[in-house]
């Protein structure tokens, strides 16, 4: 576990002091491999013999779900970064020093995310979540051009404000804890809190949760606190966008969950359900107009992230074991699919020199493989069978119906239908249609990038028809944890 923590730091430092691109590449790819393997071993350990802890660190099934996501995405995004950054370097968008900084920050970001997932203490968790914001801020502002700076500024402003509220909430929670058992070393350790959660003061806890929900919700990208998200995602380098929407959002959701587990014991569950469902539906609804009328490819994907976060939160809001299972599964699927889409968006933007959808045409003829995978991924993200997201989405909606919220379920299906229409419209426009004049020859995509995409697309297709038993167990374990078991 410590190894997993230490690894990224080492890689980051190492890559800071390299002098040649190749060396950096080697260092980082090995580093990311090691990180992923470390995380995988942790996950494996959890699946084998349950939760375990080490001083302030604690992992269980719930963290395992997120950790496995992180394990996959660390590797693929690093893989993709190699070729992406190389091209940027070749195009002269960035200098070598910037390249070094990129890899350094990349690893810091990984580090912060890992720490979010493995600390056993709400306070430290807050610290770590805030740290992810700060680490990714410079990555968002990476190109330091006008729009990048603007995006970064909004990103950090909005998120920090939100996170401050979360801190307020945490403080109040701590206050509730202190007023039950005096301040001691176990402060804000969520296991302790869980033990005593019944005896906490409801009003304060409720107050705390409101702040926590809004605060972490900002980071999760729930409407109407999602405003930073499209800017940041559209301006960051593609691999970073992938990480942001794949893992960072999920990490924030994880932090929220940890609080939720404690809160739901004391606060009226109806209240919580209304809050979460409300935020979820609102996020989905808000995303629709921006997806229906959109000019920027990466913003399109960003808004779809908003939508999917909405679905996930809604899944948690429904609050039956099945729906939570679905929500967690959805988290995984979404992370994989969305990261792939951002990789492709990265390739496309690099090849076409624009993010403007209107100027991206004829993908299948310019780069057949990527184009095909792009269509597949879009179909997957819109929840078309036989891909993973359909399964999780179907579970969530089924749970919605099962919990008696028939109208909600039907409405949800309609909203998703509208989103499907929007996504498909732009997807077809980009994939088919006449080849643009200035793109005479068909291009070849670098091997590592291609590999990253192929891995993810493969995963998408597999998860659509086959949920392995260990994953199934892990998810059910996590679901029981979230249910407060």
């Amino acid at each position, binding site marked *: 576990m410590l190894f997993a923590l230490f690894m990224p730091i080492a890689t980051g430092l190492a890559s800071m002091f390299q002098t040649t691109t190749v060396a950096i590449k080697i260092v980082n790819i090995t580093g990311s491999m090691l990180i992923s393997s470390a995380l995988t071993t942790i996950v494996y350990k959890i699946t084998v013999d349950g939760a375990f802890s080490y001083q302030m660190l604690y992992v269980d099934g719930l963290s395992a779900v997120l950790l496995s996501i992180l394990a996959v995405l660390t590797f693929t995004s690093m893989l993709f970064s190699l070729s992406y950054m190389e091209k940027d370097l070749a195009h002269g968008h960035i200098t070598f020093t910037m390249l070094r900084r990129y890899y350094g920050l990349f690893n810091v970001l990984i580090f912060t995310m890992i720490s979010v997932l493995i600390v056993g203490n709400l*306070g430290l968790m807050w610290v770590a979540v805030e740290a992810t914001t700060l680490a990714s801020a410079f990555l968002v502002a990476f190109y330091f051009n006008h729009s990048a700076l603007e995006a970064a*500024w909004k990103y950090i402003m909005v998120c*920090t*404000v939100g996170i*401050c509220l979360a801190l307020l909430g945490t*403080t109040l929670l*701590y206050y509730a804890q202190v007023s039950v058992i005096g301040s001691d*070393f176990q*402060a804000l350790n969520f296991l302790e809190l869980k033990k005593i959660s019944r005896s906490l003061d409801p009003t304060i806890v409720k*107050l705390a949760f409101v702040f926590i929900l809004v605060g972490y919700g900002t980071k999760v990208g729930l409407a109407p606190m999602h405003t930073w998200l499209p800017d940041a995602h559209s301006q960051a380098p593609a691999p970073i966008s992938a990480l942001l929407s794949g893992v960072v959002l999920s990490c924030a959701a994880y932090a929220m969950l940890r609080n939720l587990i404690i809160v739901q014991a004391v606060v009226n569950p109806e209240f919580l359900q209304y809050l979460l469902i409300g935020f979820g539906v609102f996020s989905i609804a808000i995303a629709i107009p921006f997806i229906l009328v959109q000019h920027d490819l990466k913003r399109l994907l960003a808004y779809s992230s908003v939508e999917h976060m909405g679905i996930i939160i809604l899944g948690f809001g429904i609050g039956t074991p099945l729906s939570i299972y679905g929500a967690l599964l959805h988290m995984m699927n979404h992370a994989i699919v969305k990261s792939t889409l951002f990789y492709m968006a990265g390739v496309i933007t690099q090849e076409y020199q624009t993010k403007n959808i209107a100027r991206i045409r004829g993908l299948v003829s310019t780069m057949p493989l990527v184009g095909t995978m792009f269509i597949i991924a879009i179909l997957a993200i819109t929840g078309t069978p036989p891909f993973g997201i359909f399964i999780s989405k179907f579970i969530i909606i089924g749970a919605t119906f099962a919990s008696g919220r028939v109208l909600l379920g039907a409405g949800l299906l309609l909203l998703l239908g509208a989103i499907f229409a929007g996504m498909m419209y732009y997807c077809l426009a980009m994939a088919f249609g006449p080849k643009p004049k200035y793109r005479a020859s068909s291009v070849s995509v670098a091997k590592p990038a291609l590999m990253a995409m192929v891995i993810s697309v493969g995963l998408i297709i597999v998860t659509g028809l086959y949920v392995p038993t260990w994953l199934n167990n892990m998810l059910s374990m996590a679901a029981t944890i979230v249910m407060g078991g």
Partner: protein
Amino acid sequence: MNILTILLLFTTLLLTRASELKTAVRIIAIQSLMLALACTAVGMETGEVQIYVAAILTVIIKAGFLPYVLMNIVNTLQHEREDHPILDISYSSLLACIAIVLSYGLIDQALPGAGSRDALATAVAMTLIGLLLIITRRQAVMQIMGMITMENGIYLVGLSVTKGFPIIIELGVFFDVLVAVMVLGILTSRLKLAGLSTDTSILKKLKG
């Protein structure tokens, strides 16, 4: 203790009236100093070591280092003033007063009999006013001020209701604040370097 809280409120209100960036920075420094004093006061009450540590950290980071950095940044940007804030200065201070009243109301409503009423109310008020500053000010630096105020407010909440976090979390929080402000500062100067004004309200390229 009460004097300190009143002084804190006073500095915060002052901040809403500041249009010169340098002044704003100075006010923040003073505010943080007040906070540190409050911290020590609490320390005397409880007599826990970690709170003294926290106080020292506050002095060093919030009252010393950050204002210094911000000062440097402000010096680099000439003739950037908070001339026409989105909400007029007098109105915003009016709102600030309302916020104070509100926070007292909120405290009595939400957690009656919690710790020291005044301190808590002040803390909430500071948080609100911090938000207010972020919303109503155009200048990047002023928004940073707002954020620090907010941070201070929340810190004060913690201080007044729970006598401070455990030290390790404390350290983390301090570290985050430090980095956050640093990052914001760097971004501000970058904005300047990119040949833009540090007026954030014109950052409207990304929309839709």
